[in-house]
């Protein structure tokens, strides 16, 4: 069992995917340089420039062209260089990728994967630290998954490729090198739509996804050391959401904190909190609290740490709900 990091896990999944001749990769600088994060490193050499395609700087064009390819029977995997550069492609994604099945009543479909590196924490320039998963999770017709470990990165990407519908695949930049672990033994896909019970507990549920799983588990460790039994859930899949898992956990512990790095207002945490109170209100012994990025543009390097939810902020919310 060799340990790999998150970027390598994704690289392995892409490598395996390319064994299927229908698979093509498209993106800015993914070929010759192997991507700005080296996630596609070596793939162009191995599979050729016709299948690992360096494109002009044109996100709408990349997604639109990939959509056409998918219509014509290929299985494109698109890389948006950063989430902040995915917005020019938003129209293609919402108006076409997400809808062609509906528009044609299953006659035409566009199974494809749109990989988007997201999130803050590396002191990057403006637009390089976005976490706008909410704008994708709100679009009917898409599935939206977020990886957090080499294992689920490999598993979710494999599942996304097998999925007959388009999948937005979010990759936490902050974990590309930092998250290390083994690949799934059997190379099996991780079912889209199922959350991962990171650990079981009975006093408190911490629900998160992506890069914030680090702070979340660190907070859980601290709480456990203080004798609190913490359940930690890694959503993995925002759409479809594993409502059963969330609701069961909330009913069991009665105390829930949701953690994500996107701004609070209109963030996906609102959806999680709303669902939990809908289905577990009378089990709740405290309000479902959200620990999130603030409602501001992610600050640049010097103040970025003020933005990202810290272990302390999670703990502070945990203590609040535990008090009630």
């Amino acid at each position: 069992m060799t340990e790999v990091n998150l970027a390598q896990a994704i690289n392995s999944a892409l490598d395996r995917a390319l064994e299927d001749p229908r698979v093509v990769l498209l993106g800015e600088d993914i070929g010759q340089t192997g991507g700005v994060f080296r996630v596609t490193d070596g793939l162009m050499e191995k599979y050729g420039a016709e299948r690992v395609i360096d494109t002009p700087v044109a996100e709408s064009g990349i997604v639109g062209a990939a959509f056409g390819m998918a219509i014509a029977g290929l299985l494109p995997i698109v890389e948006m260089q950063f989430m902040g550069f995915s917005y020019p492609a938003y129209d293609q994604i919402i108006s076409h990728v997400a809808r062609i099945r509906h528009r044609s009543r299953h006659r035409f479909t566009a199974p494809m994967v749109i990989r988007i590196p997201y999130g803050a924490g590396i002191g990057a320039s403006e637009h390089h630290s976005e976490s706008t998963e909410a704008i994708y999770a709100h679009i009917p017709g898409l599935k939206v998954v977020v990886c957090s470990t080499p294992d689920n990165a490999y598993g979710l990407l494999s599942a996304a490729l097998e999925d007959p519908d388009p999948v937005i695949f979010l990759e936490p930049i902050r974990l590309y090198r930092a998250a290390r672990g083994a690949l799934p033994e059997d190379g099996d896909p991780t079912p889209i739509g199922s959350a991962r019970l990171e650990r079981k507990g009975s006093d408190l549920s911490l629900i998160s996804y992506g890069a914030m799983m680090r702070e979340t588990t660190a907070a859980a460790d601290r709480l456990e050391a203080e004798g609190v039994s913490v359940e930690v859930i890694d959503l993995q899949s925002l759409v479809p959401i594993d409502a059963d898992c969330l609701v069961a956990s909330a009913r069991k512990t009665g105390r829930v904190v949701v953690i994500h790095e996107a701004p609070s207002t209109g963030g996906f945490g609102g959806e999680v909190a709303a669902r939990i109170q809908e289905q577990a209100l009378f089990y709740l012994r405290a309000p479902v609290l959200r620990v999130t990025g603030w409602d501001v543009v992610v600050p640049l390097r010097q103040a970025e740490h003020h933005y990202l939810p810290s272990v302390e902020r999670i703990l502070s919310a945990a203590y609040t709900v535990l008090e009630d």
Partner: protein
Amino acid sequence: MLQQLACQIMSGLLQILSPDGRTVNGTQPQVSTVIRRYEAMIESRLYDRKASALQRQGRLATYASYAGQEACQIGAVAPLSRRDWLVASYRDAAAMRFFGYPWKNLLLTRIGDERGGCPPEGVNALPPSITVGGHMIHAVGIAWAEILQGGDAVALTMFGDGATSEGDFHEAMNFAGVYRTPTIFFCQNNGWAISMPRSRQTASPTIAQKAEAYGFGGVMVDGNDVLAVEAAVSEAVGRARSGQGPTLIEAITYRMNAHTTTDDPRRYRDNQEVEEWQKRDPLERVRLWLVDQGAWDEARQAEAERKATERIEAAVQEAEAIPPFTATEIFDAMYATPTGALLDQRRRAQVERP
């Protein structure tokens, strides 16, 4: 013929049949082919009238008339074969029909039923694009896939003069140029984008010349001349099929009616302009030529109209016979398999709205 064509293209607007029904430059079209094109144009014109009437009766939602653009529509798709792809817009019902997309489906979309977007298997045409500009790149991706898969099909995309202002037009043209995809960009420059005249849509003298910015060729053609359109597209298809990459075709034409049935063109254009274009009717010149060849007369006209009307009426009946979706059917085509949330909502839709 190609040689001759190219030379006319160089000298400006390609025309084969003049408005008074004479062939230009000594071309000798095949009568049987011209009859087939003309019959398709007749049927198209009648469908357009029918659909407009249905809309006035409240039986369609909105409708976008293509009257005046029939030569573009038939000429553009005539050179395509079944394995090729058509990626067209809301105003291209005649082109889509001629390519094999049934009137029934086109009507359904306008009636307001998503099943319109589901043509029979084997018809390689995407449902008409409602957004302006976004679909052209799809024809690039499809054509590109064709290269990668070793096929020789081409993709033709139809759009208006207004659509050339969208950023997506640029990205589509640029990708096609860089990857030399077998894509034909067919622009129907009908003079207007709703209320915006072509002259204020872009400051470039022609749309055709925009192709040069992407490293490939553009041609201008008389869009009311079905033979000229077909010739220009044929050549572009030939180039695309033989690996010579994309072409932009600007067909100069005119939208005779309102933008859609909710538009009032008197607010922005002179009736005089419309009358001028009336004289360049795309059907009339073909009829004149055929009559001149002794290949057409009033009886044949009546017969063609009768047959076309029958087909159209049958399509209307078929389309209108389809019962609208029930409250639960609207959930059935978002994903291959509905998500849990959708199943839940579908159940609620049944309960809450009995």
